[in-house]
């Protein structure tokens, strides 16, 4: 390395300590697009204008380049297992499994309610002695099934809403139909 190179390096090294990210710095997407040659000519020139005066963005660009190489070659020291484990734990296994277990239980319970209601309903015909008891059991299990299932809940909500607003909506619908027929006749 000649004296000239050494001097420039020293000068640039002096300014290295002044590395600072500012509000004008290129955002990640622009840097990535610049690196992948996806910027149009004008944006490319603007990016280069900024890069020429910003050591931080130049170092980021250098990092993008080096990261690809580092990843390919598996560069870098070994990461402590504890750290990896902790990072993996950001999506918790136990919690997920617990939620899944609860969901599965609910699904099975729903099926059992429906099956029980069906069996007791059929049984009411075959065992006339306990006809009413079977019907009551059918009703209870049927209600439980209806309340547990999404469809049942939705049906209840629709019926409830219809019961509450049926008169208003009926009037509204009939008025709309009337208007349509009148405009059609005209």
């Amino acid at each position, binding site marked *: 390395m*000649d*004296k*000239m*190179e050494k*001097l*420039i*390096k*020293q*000068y*640039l*090294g*002096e300014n*290295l*300590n002044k*590395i600072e*990210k500012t509000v004008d710095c290129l955002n*990640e*997407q622009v*840097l*990535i697009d610049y*690196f*992948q*040659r996806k910027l149009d000519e004008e944006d490319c*020139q603007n990016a*280069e*204008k900024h*890069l*020429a*005066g910003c*050591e931080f963005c*130049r*170092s*980021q*660009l*250098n*990092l*993008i*380049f*080096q*990261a*690809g190489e*580092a*990843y390919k070659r*598996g*560069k*870098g*020291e*070994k*990461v*402590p297992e504890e*750290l*990896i484990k*902790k*990072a*993996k734990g*950001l*999506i*918790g*296994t136990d919690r*997920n499994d617990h939620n899944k277990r609860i969901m599965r239980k609910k699904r099975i319970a729903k099926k059992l309610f429906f099956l029980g209601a069906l069996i007791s309903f059929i049984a009411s015909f075959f065992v006339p002695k306990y006809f009413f008891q079977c019907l009551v059991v059918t009703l209870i299990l049927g209600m439980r099934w209806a309340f547990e299932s999404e469809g049942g809940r939705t049906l209840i909500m629709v019926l409830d809403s219809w019961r509450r607003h049926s008169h208003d909506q009926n009037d509204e619908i009939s008025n709309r139909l009337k208007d349509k027929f009148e405009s059609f006749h005209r």
Partner: protein
Amino acid sequence: MNELKLIKSCLQKEKKAWDVFVQKYSKLIYWAIRKRLNASGFKFNQDNIDGIFQEVFLSILEGDKLRQLKDAKIIPGWLAMIASNKTVDFIRRVIREDKRLVVDMPVLKDDNFRQELQQRDLFDLIGNSINSLSAKAKIVISFNLLQGRTHKEIANIMNMPTNTVSTIIARAKEKLKQDLEKKGIKDL
């Protein structure tokens, strides 16, 4: 698993995909954090790295930056940049909280004072000369002399032929030499 599918599954919080992702990119993220910390001159310890490391993965999980990813090749670059930015944020936070200086400025001793002043004058001259170079030449020179990138690597980064990079570097050096010689510095 396809890299982009892996990222998508991670953003959908699928445990298995996340475990694979963490295992695959931990080393790279760790490397990027250390690199930025070393470059900043910040006095750090293992706890700092551990904290930033978790922050990076959390931001990947919660942020939506990776959603924009369309090219699997650039994933390492993206992750390294996220790690670097998180590290810079961390350093800023610590400086704000502790009111500490990032770099210990050297105290000038009397013996070295004259030499230091001469050096500063020389640096001012070099600075003026470098500032008169084109934007591309400045970037190329910085990559070559400061970051230690070869001509071929710079050609890859800047999307230009290697010969052009070599020419830019040679011309820039020649120009700087001439500028300095004009100012009376001839021993170069």
